[in-house]
């Protein structure tokens, strides 16, 4: 009987987790880029780097909108780095992020901050 309960509980947990993942795995990463003084960085390029076993590989890039916001879609990597660049400023530090599962939708808490030229 214990085996039935343990197996049923595990199946329930796994099913629940898979359902949650299926509903939240669009691979969307969104956030903001700001200048050194905190103003939104318009037209900055945000690069998405996938962390592999041995290195970082550039997978995608996008531009920030007029409010400094950016959205990257369809990026499944669970371990990745973001970096913002804009002419006239130093690039932001390449920051590593983690997701609980591949393609998890993620909104960055902290903006990417460009460096002073």
């Amino acid at each position, binding site marked *: 009987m214990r085996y039935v309960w343990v197996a049923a509980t595990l199946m329930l947990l796994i099913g629940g987790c898979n359902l949650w993942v299926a509903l939240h795995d669009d691979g969307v990463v969104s956030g903001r880029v700001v200048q050194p003084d905190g103003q939104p960085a318009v037209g900055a390029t945000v690069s998405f780097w996938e962390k*592999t*076993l*041995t290195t970082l590989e550039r997978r995608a890039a996008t531009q920030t909108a007029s409010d400094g916001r950016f959205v990257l879609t369809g990026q499944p990597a669970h*371990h990745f780095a973001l970096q913002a660049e804009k002419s006239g400023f130093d690039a932001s530090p390449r920051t590593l992020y*983690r*997701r*609980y*599962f*591949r393609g998890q939708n993620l909104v960055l808490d902290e903006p990417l901050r460009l460096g002073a030229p």
Partner: protein
Amino acid sequence: MRPSRAAAVHATLGAVSVVMLVPFYWVLKTSLTGENIFQYPPALLPRAMHPFYYVDVWYYIPFVRYVINSVIVSAIVVAANLVCNALAAYALTLRFRGKRAIVTLLLSCMLIPFQATIIPAYLITKELHLLNSHLGLALPLCSTIVCIFVFKASFDAVPRSLIDAARIDGLAEWRIIRHVMLPLSTSAVATTVILSFIWSWNSFLWPLIVIRNPEMQTLPLGLSTFLSYMENTTGALYAFCIMVLVPGVALFLLEQRRFIDGLTSGATKG
């Protein structure tokens, strides 16, 4: 036993248990924090725990593939051990000429390490065209002498009158094993299941020799491969260790009472 003496015994046992559990705790803690194991002074309690090392293990390597391979091999090993060992043990409960010699031979074979027989085992597996296959991985563990004697101890405890009655009722020998001996030997069955599962689950040397295709690797081989890739990532490595350990520990916890009964049955006879 006097209360003060009982308390002292329990305190000692508790202290020994803590000492034995510390390495497991350390592995679990490191898998959740990724801290440097050589850090001094070491942190006893985990700080800033997160599950991301488990996520790394899940995605960086074909972990599910390894688990499926290990489960298939373990299932074959457990099934084969139950059948082969029960048959062998039943034979050893019967009276026949040369029984002592066979028992002595089996016991002496336990002294030979597997490493000494690995080349013949490899050649036999090759001749059977079972290299790089699940059956080939399971073959050397399909019958183990320890489990034969576990079954034998349990079968010896079954009253002869029951077996004689079954024979008078017309049961064939294999049906006596199936319907009389095995139902009365659940502890031996549980012990065989747990031991053979754990031996198969943790087997490293034989899969290393037999397997060429990365798709056929089992969990211990996967752990070794992972170590070669990620030698600096302590957290992920320890997370992998925990993920490999969990099924065996879970099986033991589910069946620990019968396991202990099986290992100690016959120990207090006469």
